[in-house]
């Protein structure tokens, strides 16, 4: 078998570990990589933001109301004289917190439902997919608005509402992938050696779905941040006094002719955050799920 060995050694040389190839490919994608760095910065801000802000984001200062951009207040001050930049930094935690937590909840529920639905098929699948169909019959934001209308405004309810509407899309996607993997020969091979159902689902099918879950998760966090901001903007989300980006925009509407910085910066923060998540998701998809590349 000496020839076999030489060939394989060459293959090894060209193919390093999976993780390092992934990192290498990822670094090659400049847009995705910069977006990733930006996202890391946001996460750091969300963690340490409240300790590094130049001004207290909540304390009013009626002597410096509605100031424009200056050396002292880079992004100006709002109608209570609070520093806009400080509020934006403090708001990172709220926006990312809502986005990430709601999507994680939705993704977990959706993934389990999708795996079960796809693997078992028949009536289990039919039931779960019919429920998803019903949820899909409501446009996303409308579903969230409906839920908030029932439960009342507030951050927790927004998280629940956004998590709720991301469940069916995760369930559908994971189900689709499960159906695809389930038909693959190596799953049949596992069955033919006598592997039990939960071993097949969790040890063999679930790992195959992880890449698309990661990709979708990234993009869905962006969608969730947008949705939560919309709800706050409509006055159905975070309390208007909190430094939530959506709520800040909502309050700033009255000053549109007079203090445009109040409108501009919170929106820019949302835009850049969601943009970085979408770019990151695109890059991850190109690497992790090359089938849907381009």
């Amino acid at each position: 078998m000496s020839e076999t060995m030489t060939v394989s050694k060459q293959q090894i040389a060209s193919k390093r570990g999976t993780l390092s190839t992934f990192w290498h490919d990822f670094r090659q994608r400049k847009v995705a990589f910069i977006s990733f760095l930006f996202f890391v910065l946001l996460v750091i801000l969300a963690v340490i933001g409240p300790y590094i802000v130049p001004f207290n984001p909540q304390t009013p200062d009626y002597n410096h109301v509605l100031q424009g951009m200056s050396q002292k207040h880079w992004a100006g001050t709002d109608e209570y004289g609070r520093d806009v930049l400080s509020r934006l930094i403090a708001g990172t935690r709220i926006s990312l917190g809502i986005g990430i937590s709601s999507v994680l909840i939705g993704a977990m529920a959706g993934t389990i439902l999708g795996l079960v639905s796809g693997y078992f098929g028949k009536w289990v699948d039919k039931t779960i997919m019919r429920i998803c169909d019903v949820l899909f019959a409501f446009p996303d934001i409308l579903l969230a608005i409906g839920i908030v209308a029932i439960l009342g405004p507030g951050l927790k309810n927004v998280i629940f509402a956004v998590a709720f509407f991301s469940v069916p899309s995760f369930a559908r996607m994971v189900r689709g992938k499960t159906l695809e993997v389930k038909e693959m020969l190596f799953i049949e091979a596992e069955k033919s050696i006598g592997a039990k159902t939960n071993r097949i689902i969790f040890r063999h099918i679930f790992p195959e779905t992880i890449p698309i879950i990661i990709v979708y998760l990234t993009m869905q966090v962006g969608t969730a941040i947008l949705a939560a901001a919309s709800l706050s903007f409509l006055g159905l989300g975070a309390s208007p006094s909190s430094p939530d980006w959506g709520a800040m925009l909502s309050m700033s509407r009255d000053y549109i002719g007079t203090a445009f910085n109040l409108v501009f910066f919170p929106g820019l923060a949302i835009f850049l955050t969601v943009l970085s998540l979408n770019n990151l998701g695109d890059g991850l998809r190109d690497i992790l799920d090359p089938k849907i590349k381009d």
Partner: protein
Amino acid sequence: MVDNELLKVKGLKKYFPISNGWFSSKEYVKAVDEVSFSVKKGETLSLVGESGCGKSTLGRLINGLIKADAGDIVFKGDNLAEASETKWRSYRKPMQMIFQDPYASLSPRMKIKEIIAEPLKIHDPSLSREEREAKVKSILEICGIDYYHSDKYPHEFSGGQRQRIGIARALILQPELIIADEPVSALDVSIQAQILNLLKKLQKDYQLTYLFISHDLSVVEHISDHVAVMYLGNIVEIAPREAIFEDPKHPYTKALLSSVPIPDPKLKRESIILKGEIPNAANPPKGCKFHTRCPLAMSICSKEIPIMKTVGDKQQMVACHLYQ
């Protein structure tokens, strides 16, 4: 039970429903229709036929990957057709499968030593780690893969090597019956020869019984003791190898044999080229299913289904009106 008969299949049926909305009556694809045969220990029976003949379905039925609608699957004296999933699982130890596509049949995220140890973990959980590794090592070497490679992932191997890994996984539980579904059709000829030789060597060394599913008649001739020719869910002819290849009886077997291109330009034979295509399995012809393409069809062929009959003195069984 006949002496040393390892597997016996009787009247096996599998109809796949095709859903056609709520209004039309249910239709079925008769993938396997009243199939019977038996395999002796240490022998190779090949199932041969074109796409849609039901040979792969038959292999999966026997391994219990899909449930039969009717009929018996008697393996080592036990009828498995009605068995529970748990009982099936215990019978998967002495009955293993090798698959066609060595690229797709190995879990892409497992190291090959994990892939090969997987059956041991399922059926022999009491084994210690060392014992398991020792077994993996010896089986890998038997199958011609250096243990040095066992930490690698399937994508790092070539097609032929992967098929060796698939064979190692099937062998590690020391099975008696191996169902091999087109094990060499995805491989290049030079690699195909290596794998066929390995399969034959293993059979000799471990008294394995093979159920060999293939569309390639030349491979079938090389490996089989008995051959069953299938057409649209039925076995049309089943006989010892020499009889099938030297004296085929059924017109379909004859046509199939003469369609195979022979790599020898001096042999300018008159080949029988069948007219038309394989009919839709959801709506097969009445009577003998082959009559629409048969060059020797008679009027009875479109009316009555021929039954299996022994013809000649070589245990040759044929389902054809020409011999009834």
